[in-house]
C-alpha cells in the first residue's frame, strides 16, 4: 500500500523536481556553511554553491516553468542564460 | 475577413501621437544626454555642494540650452499618452481605462516638466544662490524623475490592464505590448531607492537607480510609439464593424 503510494508520488515529474530542489538547497547550505567553516577550501565551496544554485534555477525553468515542452528557441535561450550567468558569476567570485 | 472602420483622420492623428513619442526621445537625447548632463550624470549625489556649483557654472550655458530641449521633450508626453488612451478608448463600450490613462498621462507630464524646470533653475544663477540651494534643485530634478515610480509605473500598468483583460481579438494593442508595459513598470522600481542612498549604485547618479529606470522609460516610449505607428497604418488592432459596440461611434 505505502509502496504504491510512494511510487505514484515519484512518478510525477513535479514531485521529483521538488525533492531534488529541496535536497540541493540542503546540499548548497552544507557546502556554503560546513565546508567553508570546517575545512576551509573557500574557492571550491564558492564554485559548488554557484553551480548548485544554477542547477536549481535550471530545474525550476525546465520542470516548473514547463520549458521541457517549449519550442527549442525558448528552451535553449533559457539554457544559454543559465550557463552564461553561472560562468560570469564563477569568474567574478572564484577567478 | 473582418471589416474594420476606415477612418483616415484617426490614422493621421495616431501618426502625430506616435511621432510625439519619437520626438520626445530624440529631444531628451539632445537635452539630457548630449548637452544637459542628466544621463550620464554630470553631478554626483555624494559630492559637496561647492562641487555642484563649480560644475554647473562651468557648463552653465550648455545646461540652459539643454533645459529648453528637455522642456520640449517632456511637453510631448501629453500627446504621446493621449494617443495611447485614444486607441484604448476605441475598444471600450463605456470608457474607464482610457480616462485613467489620461489622468496618469497628465500627472506624468507635469512631474516630468518639473524636472526640466528645476534643471533650468539649477543653472539660473548658481553664483548667487547658496550652494545647498543649487544642490537641492538637482536633487529635486532627480527625485521628480526617479522617485515618481507609482505614477509612471502606474501609467504603464493602466495601459497593460485593458489589453490583458480584453476579449480575444478585441485588444487595443497586441498582447505582448501589455507585457512590455508591465516589465517597464517593474524596471522603474529601483528608482525609489534614491531616497536612502547618496553613494553607490542606488544613489540618483548610480547604475541601478538612474540608468535602469531611464533606459526603460525611454525605450518604453519608443516601443509604445512604434505600436501607435502600427495602429496608424491600420495593421491589426482595429475595432470590428458590427461588434459588441459600434466602432464608428467611438471615433466620430
Amino acid at each position, binding site marked *: 500500500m505505502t509502496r504504491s503510494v510512494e511510487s505514484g508520488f515519484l512518478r510525477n515529474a513535479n514531485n521529483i523536481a*521538488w525533492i531534488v530542489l529541496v535536497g540541493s538547497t540542503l546540499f548548497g547550505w552544507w557546502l556554503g556553511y560546513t565546508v567553508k567553516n570546517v575545512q576551509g577550501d573557500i574557492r571550491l565551496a564558492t564554485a559548488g554553491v554557484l553551480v*548548485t544554485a544554477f542547477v536549481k534555477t535550471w530545474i*525550476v525553468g525546465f520542470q516548473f516553468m514547463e520549458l521541457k515542452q517549449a519550442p527549442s528557441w525558448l528552451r535553449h535561450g533559457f539554457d544559454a542564460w543559465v550557463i552564461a*550567468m553561472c560562468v560570469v558569476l564563477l569568474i567574478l567570485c572564484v577567478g | 475577413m473582418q471589416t474594420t472602420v476606415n477612418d483616415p483622420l484617426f490614422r493621421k492623428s495616431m501618426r502625430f501621437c506616435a511621432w510625439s513619442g519619437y520626438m520626445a526621445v530624440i529631444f531628451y537625447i539632445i537635452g539630457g544626454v548630449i548637452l544637459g548632463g542628466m544621463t550620464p550624470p554630470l553631478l554626483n549625489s555624494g559630492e559637496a555642494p561647492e562641487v555642484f556649483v563649480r560644475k554647473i557654472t562651468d557648463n552653465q550655458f550648455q545646461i540652459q540650452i539643454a533645459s529648453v530641449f528637455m522642456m520640449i521633450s517632456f511637453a510631448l508626453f501629453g500627446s504621446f499618452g493621449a494617443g495611447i488612451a485614444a486607441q484604448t478608448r476605441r475598444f471600450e463600450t463605456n470608457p474607464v481605462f482610457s480616462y485613467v490613462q489620461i489622468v496618469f498621462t497628465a500627472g506624468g507630464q507635469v512631474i516630468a516638466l518639473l524636472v526640466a524646470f528645476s534643471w533650468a533653475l539649477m543653472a539660473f544663477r548658481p553664483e548667487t544662490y547658496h550652494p545647498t540651494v543649487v544642490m537641492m534643485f538637482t536633487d529635486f530634478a532627480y527625485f521628480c524623475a526617479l522617485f515618481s515610480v507609482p505614477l509612471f509605473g502606474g501609467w504603464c500598468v493602466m495601459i497593460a490592464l485593458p489589453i490583458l483583460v480584453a476579449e480575444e481579438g478585441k485588444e487595443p494593442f497586441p498582447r*505582448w505590448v501589455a507585457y512590455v508595459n508591465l516589465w517597464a513598470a517593474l524596471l522603474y522600481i529601483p528608482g525609489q531607492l534614491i531616497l536612502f542612498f547618496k553613494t553607490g549604485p542606488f544613489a540618483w547618479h548610480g547604475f541601478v537607480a538612474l540608468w535602469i529606470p531611464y533606459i526603460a522609460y525611454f525605450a518604453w516610449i519608443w516601443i509604445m510609439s512604434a505600436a501607435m505607428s502600427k495602429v496608424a497604418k491600420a495593421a491589426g488592432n482595429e475595432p470590428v464593424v458590427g461588434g459588441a459596440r459600434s466602432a464608428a461611434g467611438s471615433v466620430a
Partner: protein
Amino acid sequence: MTDSITDNRRAPPVGGRMATPDCATQKHVPGEVGIWLFVAGDLLVFSAFFVVIALGYREQTELFAQSRTTLDMWVGVLNTFFLLTGSWFVAKGVESCRQAHGAASSRYISLGILFGLLFVANKSFEWGLKIANGVTPKTNDFFMYFFSFTGIHLVHVLVGLGVLLVVRNVSRRPELSKKDIRTIESGATFWHLVDLLWIVLFSLFYLL
C-alpha cells in the same frame, strides 16, 4: 473532467494545448509569448543585479564574508523552502487544471499563495530583527545590497501573490477555456520566475 476542458474549446487545439497526457510530445509555449518577453526582460535586469553583488563580493570579500555570518541562515533556508514548495504546488495546480480539472486545482493554487505569504512573513520577521539590532542598508555595502535587492525581490513576491489570486479565481471556474489555461500558465510562469530569482539571490547573499 478532461472532457469538460476539451468540449469548452471552441477552436481546434493548437500547439500542444491538448489536455491529454501525450501533450508532452508536442511543442507549446507555456502561457503566451508575451510573458516570456517579460521573463527575459526581468532576467536581464536581475543579471545586472547579480553581477553588481558579485563585483561587491570580489572587491570587499572580507567585509562580505563577515557581514554574511550575521545573517540568520535558517531564515534564508526556510524562505527558499517556502518558495520552492509554493512553486511546486502552483506547478501541480497547473497540471491539475489541464489534466484533471476539479476542486483540487484551485486548492493547489491556494497552497501556493499560503507559502508565498509565509515567505513574506518570514522576510518581514528577518528584516524587523535586523533593523531592531541596528543593521540597516546604511551599515555597509553588503547590507545595502542585501536590503535593496531582496527588497526588489519582495516587490516581485507581492506582485506574484496578486497574480496568484487572479490565477486562483480563474482556476475555480468549473470549465476552463483555452484563454483561462493561458492566464493560469502565464501567472504560474511569473510565480516560478520569483522562485528562480530567489534561488540565486539566496546563494549570493547567504551561502557564498
